[in-house]
């Protein structure tokens, strides 16, 4: 099992490197000259060219790529922002916690609210609870997050004055962003949980359990639930990725000083270095998350664990057989 984890970690490394290469390449061909951006309008062509030389922008593509990769992965230096010259890695480090709070809280709320909702809907299939949950869920995946965010801000911050209008200096400031960021995820999770549970409930092994005389309660929590939860791990992982992308918008709406806001400002300023850095970091975070998902599968589903341990298991079984012979 450990061997599999290590193998998976090693597999992430080339992916992450290639992601950096891809992002760098795409941004390299973006319109706009960084040197011009830094010096601003009205700078002379000579000054611009000198700055380009200084920044290494006149070197051939592969040299620049190599330099970038070396800088990023060996020196862990993401470079400086074009707009204010501050270290990108430093900015990201200070802002990362805010973004992480948003993303992680969304995951937690999905698990705590979304999964029970979906399970309840599945077990009361066809009843009013099922219909209510599914109606709410389908609305939840249909409303744009930034729109509902702004509407709620209007309601709670302006009209009712219960919550602050921007920023997260107090805990009240976090309430709306976390709720809004989680909405879509909770709705998706409720739908997934419901369909997963419905499929499991119809399984033959549930009939076997019932034929043993087990109570419906034991069947639900002891047999159905563990099996229904397994595919939801994947959903959680994908949701984390969506959340990371979504924070860009949410932080903008609620003026939260996280990575998303950093990126949006950079977009406006055509600050390619910042965008490069933030996208690479967030992609690494997502890859690590998916790695956790894969490993979690291994722990939770014995069939997958068997796949991971593979040949090792056959050796072990033969050993055990000899021991008991």
């Amino acid at each position, binding site marked *: 099992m450990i061997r599999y984890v290590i193998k998976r970690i090693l597999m992430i490394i080339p*992916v*992450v490197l*290639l*992601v950096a290469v*891809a*992002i760098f390449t*795409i*941004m390299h*061909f*973006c*319109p706009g000259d960084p040197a011009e951006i830094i010096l601003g309008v009205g700078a002379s062509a000579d000054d611009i060219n000198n700055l380009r030389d200084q920044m290494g922008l006149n070197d051939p593509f592969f040299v620049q790529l190599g330099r970038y990769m070396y800088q990023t992965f060996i020196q862990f230096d993401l470079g400086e922002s074009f707009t204010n010259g501050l270290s990108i890695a430093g900015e990201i480090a200070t802002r990362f916690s805010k973004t992480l709070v948003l993303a992680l809280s969304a995951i937690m709320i999905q698990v705590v609210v979304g999964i029970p909702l979906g399970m309840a809907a599945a077990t009361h299939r066809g009843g009013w609870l099922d219909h209510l949950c599914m109606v709410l869920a*389908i*609305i939840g*995946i*249909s*409303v*744009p*997050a*930034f*729109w*509902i965010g*702004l*509407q709620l*801000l*209007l309601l709670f911050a*302006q009209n009712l004055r219960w919550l602050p209008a921007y920023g997260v200096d107090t805990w009240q400031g976090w309430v709306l962003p976390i709720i809004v960021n989680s909405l879509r995820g909770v709705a998706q999770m409720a739908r997934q949980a419901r*369909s997963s549970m419905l*499929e499991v409930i119809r399984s033959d092994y549930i009939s076997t359990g019932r034929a043993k005389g087990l109570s419906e309660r034991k069947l639900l929590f002891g047999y159905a639930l563990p099996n229904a939860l397994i595919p939801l791990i994947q959903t959680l992982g994908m949701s984390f*990725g*969506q959340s*990371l*992308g*979504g924070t*860009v*918008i949410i932080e*903008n709406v609620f003026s939260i000083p996280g990575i998303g806001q950093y*990126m*949006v400002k950079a*977009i*406006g300023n*055509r600050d*390619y270095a910042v*965008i490069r850095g933030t*996208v690479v970091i*967030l*992609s690494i975070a*997502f*890859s690590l998350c*998916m790695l956790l998902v894969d490993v979690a599968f291994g722990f939770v589903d014995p069939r997958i664990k068997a796949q991971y341990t593979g040949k090792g298991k056959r050796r072990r079984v033969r050993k055990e057989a000899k021991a008991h012979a």
Partner: protein
Amino acid sequence: MLDTKNGVALAEEDAVKKQSQIKEILKRLCKNKLAVLGMVILLLYILVAVFAPLIIPYDFAEMNILEKNQGPSAQHWLGTDDFGRDIFSRILYGTRYSLGLGIGACALGLAIGVILGCIAGYFGGWVEELIMRFCDVFQAIPGTLLAIVISMLLGTGFVNTVIALGIGRITLNCRMVRAQFLSQRKLEYVEAAQATNCSKVKLMFVHILPNAISPLIVNTTMGIGGTIMMAAGLSFISLGVRPPLPEWGAMMSAAREFIRYYPYQLLFPGLAMAFLVLALNLFGDGLRDALDPKLKN
């Protein structure tokens, strides 16, 4: 002689079977009331999008500073924005952009994804490995971020945004098609068909792709809704489709500074989008249930 006659008879039988299959699917779909509701609403939106230039009361770009920031009235059913443009007309015309972006991007992602998946599945070996690693890399980048990056490369505008959003959908479809190849490879009838000298291409089109169609269709339909919202999100952060074009996300972004005094400017485009995406999701759900009734019950 006998063989060709049987061959023709079999082909006819096949065609009849497919027709009745499709009829069955349509029947199941129509029984689902929510799906029908979704279809009707969707159809309305599509009609609006197609006939927009003919039905809008005002030109969507027509500015009238004297009438700016007015609430809903008899003259302007949904009011006017900061430039005096009629919001109702802009919302109606904006249907073109949202639907166009959603359908265009998903269609693009579907086409390229299926082709890549077929190439990977057909050739196998290092070609397949290469394409799959390619997918791995692009899947590691969260969807919205990828769209942002490509948007910055291509610039704003309708076509560029379609491409930016479409590229993010390629890996999904590619993996789905390739997974079909994988699972079909193991099935016995593929071996049997190969034993009877059936060409690989024929296998691909006659056996593998038809099985992949259902999940591809459902996924694409459900994806349109998400893509529309992502497009609006891009416009919201000043990428995507820019004003004065009446894309709903851009409209909402512009309405942001006025929500204190003119909340309706934000409300209506948002409602328009929510209903469209809701209709798409209802239809997509119904489609999924109709294509595989076993999943539903």
